[in-house]
């Protein structure tokens, strides 16, 4: 829990420890770990497909009596989704929203799609964690299409319905283009829906006053973060270093 620089735990230099041309950003697993830290015990959580699914690995599951327990919702009709099954124990009738084999934990429930989206639309899901192509200054989210055959799934319902929308995303595209922008150029999933953005470089709250940086990786200045961002940022009232265990 002490950040990515413990040489005993990491005898061979971690790539991120080399003199960085790119800033020493969090790995995907570290980002997922960081998101998990902000999910209170007892929450009902829906994880989007892709990187958001990694968040589950960093949350307690299925320990009865543990009030840190999280209950995972899967929009195809499951509350209490557990980890993937061991190979050979897949059941084709028990799949996740990402259509991958799933399991359930004690305390789970099955229901139909109408009830499942009643949970989502009705504000019963405490937190959804979603990926993003772009997030705007006002919390607009674009994560469903960049062209081609349109396919939306449950993304718009989750974006509108969950009490909190956490976005997990690299701060910039592979080409270095900002993903946090003044206005989204990709088609929106929802307008003004994002509450927190977790990137490899920062944790950013979407507030009534705009984007506030809550945490920032240590070897990057606020100005350098701003340079990598297409929207105006301001430092939060209690800005702190963004750290994560090396191998969370």
């Amino acid at each position, binding site marked *: 829990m002490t950040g990515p620089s413990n040489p005993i735990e990491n005898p061979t230099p971690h790539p991120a420890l080399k003199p960085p041309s790119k800033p020493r950003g969090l790995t995907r697993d570290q980002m997922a770990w960081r998101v998990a830290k902000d999910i209170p015990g007892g929450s009902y959580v829906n994880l989007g497909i892709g990187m958001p699914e990694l968040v589950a690995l960093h949350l307690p599951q299925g320990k*009865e009596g*543990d009030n840190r327990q999280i*209950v995972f919702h899967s929009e195809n009709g499951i509350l209490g989704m557990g980890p993937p099954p061991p190979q050979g124990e897949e059941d084709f009738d028990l799949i996740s929203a990402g259509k991958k084999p799933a399991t359930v934990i004690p305390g789970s429930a099955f229901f139909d799609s109408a009830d499942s989206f009643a949970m989502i639309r009705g504000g019963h899901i405490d937190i959804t964690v979603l990926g993003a192509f772009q997030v705007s200054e006002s919390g607009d989210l674009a994560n469903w299409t960049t062209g081609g055959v349109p396919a939306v799934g449950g993304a718009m319902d989750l974006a509108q319905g969950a009490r909190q929308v956490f976005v997990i995303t690299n701060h910039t595209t592979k080409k270095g283009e900002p993903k946090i922008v003044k206005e989204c150029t990709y088609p929106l999933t929802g307008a003004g829906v994002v509450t927190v953005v977790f990137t490899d470089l920062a944790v950013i709250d979407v507030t009534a006053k705009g984007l506030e940086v809550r945490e920032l990786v240590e070897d990057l200045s606020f100005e350098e973060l701003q340079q990598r961002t297409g929207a105006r940022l301001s430092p939060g009232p209690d800005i702190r270093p963004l750290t994560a265990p090396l191998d969370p």
Partner: protein
Amino acid sequence: MIDKRIPTPAEAVAGVKDGDMVLISGFGEAGNPTELIHALIDLGTKDLTVVNNNAGNGHIGLAALLEAGRVAKIICSFPRSSRSEVFQELYRTGKIELEVVPQGTLAERLRAGGAGIGGFYTPTTVGTPLAEGKEQRTIDGREYVLEHPIRADVALIKAESADPWGNLTYRMAARNFAPAMCMAAKTTIVQVREIVDLGATDAEHVVTPSIFVDRIVEIPEPISEAAILRQAERGEKAAAP
């Protein structure tokens, strides 16, 4: 807290505030959360708006809450019954406001409230006095009335079993309004006959998933309003000249 068990009805209803809208499960005398209602009476909360299919019977449960003068308004489908004397008297003397809603519209408004629906069009009440003042529109050649969701502060619910997280089952026709009410309240408080172990309820048989439940209290031998009313009736008959 994922473990939603609360030791007593008094602790379960703590925090209900004056002026709250309170959903109360039950149809006739099946599914009434009588112990929770009496805990709410003991709490002293007033100026409540209550949603129930009926308006209480005899002097117990919802009728007792009315009789204690705690309810400013009741939203229900059928406030008349052979034993609704408490409500009748309050209504006659102008001490309670009444909104009559068709039973199906009441259930659907609760579900809409729980499901994040902003409003819906129903054919029920078209052409009747209950449609007066409501927005109407023709869709595919049929007339509909616009109805709005009910979203409440609190739901008081009776169920048969819950696991520690609040996955509920019901018993026969005592289910009625409870599942929709569990969805439609900010805080859903449930009395159950039995708290079972986590995993003891087959995930296929859960009727109200735990996400809709906030507090659970076990009342192994709940009062039967029906039994008490029948006793009272027999007593009155016996006492009659």
